[in-house]
């Protein structure tokens, strides 16, 4: 997994609330049993003019310069709600998104981000809107800086905002860790728990 430490990048404002994972990657665009090849279908129903087509809708923010090169998404509340499909995160990551800043995430989507090198940042709605306004004034010049070592987001005007992230999630992103390998360090503990549990709740062990 790609590490995340510090990112200074173009940010694209997409301030709708409740952007669901069906929007981020429509089911029809999940064509192969693979984590790859999904970015082409990302936001397909908003990004392209016709269902199933590939003619770009010029009004969609990620089809516009310089947002085509955005690595940060600014979004409305409850981003990534809905279906658990990790394909939404794989599509965003493949397209080039490294961080998403929103007042709130769908729970499963948040976990999927952390496991795929995308930093999920929760900030108050007013701050997200403030960031979006600055970005819109000069999208190419007004970059946003996100520092995971300090847990801060710095706006183009130099103002910094602290954000919170669970230590385990932060470590996984900073180090690009494999979560299974980390857990397997505790395998003795897991097996001991299972041995005790088997006596306590034998009906679980079919």
């Amino acid at each position: 997994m790609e590490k995340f430490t510090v990112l200074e990048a173009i940010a694209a404002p997409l301030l709708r609330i409740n952007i669901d994972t069906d929007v981020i990657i429509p089911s029809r665009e999940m064509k192969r049993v693979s984590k790859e090849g999904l970015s082409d279908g990302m936001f397909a129903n908003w990004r392209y003019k016709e269902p199933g087509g590939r003619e770009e809708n010029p009004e969609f923010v990620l089809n516009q310069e310089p947002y085509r090169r955005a690595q940060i998404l600014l979004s409305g509340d409850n981003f990534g709600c809905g279906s658990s499909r990790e394909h939404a995160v794989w599509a965003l990551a493949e397209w080039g998104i490294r961080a998403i800043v929103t007042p709130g995430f769908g729970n499963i989507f948040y976990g999927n981000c952390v496991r795929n090198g995308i930093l999920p940042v929760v900030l108050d709605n007013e701050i997200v809107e403030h960031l979006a306004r600055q970005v819109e004034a000069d999208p190419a010049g007004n970059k946003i800086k996100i520092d995971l070592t300090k847990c801060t987001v710095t706006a183009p005007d130099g103002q910094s905002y602290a954000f919170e992230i669970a230590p385990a999630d932060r470590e996984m992103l900073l180090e690009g860790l494999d979560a299974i390998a980390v857990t397997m360090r505790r395998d003795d503990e897991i097996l001991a728990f299972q041995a005790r549990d088997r006596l306590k709740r034998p009906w679980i062990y079919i």
Partner: protein
Amino acid sequence: MPYTVIEKIWDEHQIADLGDGTCLIYIDRVFLHERTGSVALKGLEATGRAVRNPEQAFCTMDHIVDTFPGRTDETRMPGGTAFIQTTREAALKAGINLFDLGDPRQGIAHVISPEQGIALPGVTLVCPDSHTGTLGGLGALAWGIGSTEAEHALATKTLVVKKPRTMRVTFEGSLPQGVTAKDMILKLIGEHTASGGIGYAIEFAGQAVRDLEVEARLTLCNMTIEFGAWSGLVAPDDKTIEYVKGRPFAPSEDQWDAAVKYWRTLVTDEGATFDKEITIDCADIVPQISWGTSPMHETGIDQRVPDPASEPNEARRAAMEKALEYMDLEPGARLEGIPIDAAFIGSCTNSRISDLRAAAAILKGRKVASGVKAICVPGSGLVKAAAEAEGIDKIFTDAGFEWRESGCSMCFYAGGESFGLEERVVSSTNRNFENRQGPRTRTHLASPTTVAASAIKGHLTDVRNLD
């Protein structure tokens, strides 16, 4: 010290406290399906990792399978056959329990999991599917995860989880006539928004919840994800224990008494506190219907389409305007009477035998309005067989409904089948997102009885007013 039922189940499964509220949690059951489980199984294979305790892992084919009679591995979804076949090969290789096409037990994961006794009171159960919280209806702590987390659960029998805050949602009083569990959960989401439950595990409580049969409790818990919640459950009681008894993967006779003894402890202690409490008076609930593109865009069937101008919150107002444009609805229009093109009964929300019985009671002796395409997809092969044994299939087909093989079907576009561009569908499913049921398809969420009544009338209908 008094504990909530959520804390009791959590503590029973906690292997280690990793600090700052994050815990290593033991996972009793993993359920997979061909859409997202296939990637998880392949991912494990690629890293050379094995499934730990494969006998405690399960897999079905539901998401993209065809639901027409006489189906094969072929599906209308581009590339869909590969998902089915890859999943089958990987599941057999891993040695997990597979409910394959052609198996009479095959069906929607969250329908067959209770049916087979896989989900039980007090277990932790995860599935790479957002509606896994359904199993909370049995008193299980169940939640949806991504494919990468599913790999973690399969390989280690654990997940690293941040301890959720707790919320109790109490439904007071008893349900008025014509009102169902589906209306209860829609009402909650409509009043408290699609993000109102973020970060919470919910216990549903109150007289109206106790009065619900187990299948209706599964419906109630099914849409906790639409409320934004991490999970939701109903504490097990006599009804739950009665429901579980004798199911294939339920505790055997020699373990039954010990299991029941433990399940009896799974109640919230007097004096235990929740981080948040919501109370809803059931007397205020009427049959619900959604009008927009988020499950929070819903109201009573006797109401009118709301006016965005009356919404003070700017972001919500903008979302409402977009939603009405997508749905082609005018503010102030009466919801009852809006003409429909199609009706759908199915999905992990409302496709169990009790749902089909309730819809059949409405449909019996009546006909679907001309021009309305109506489809019923039973939630599992066993639900379908039970319905056929009771003659319910005949009631549906006589009324003009298509009667299908089980699967997720047109709850979403994953089967590659849709009602069509700009078609208006009244649906017993869980999501009215843009394009969810197909490109530009317009979805109105409702209970199976509201769907049946609307199919007969040819327009959105208050089931209480049906002659």
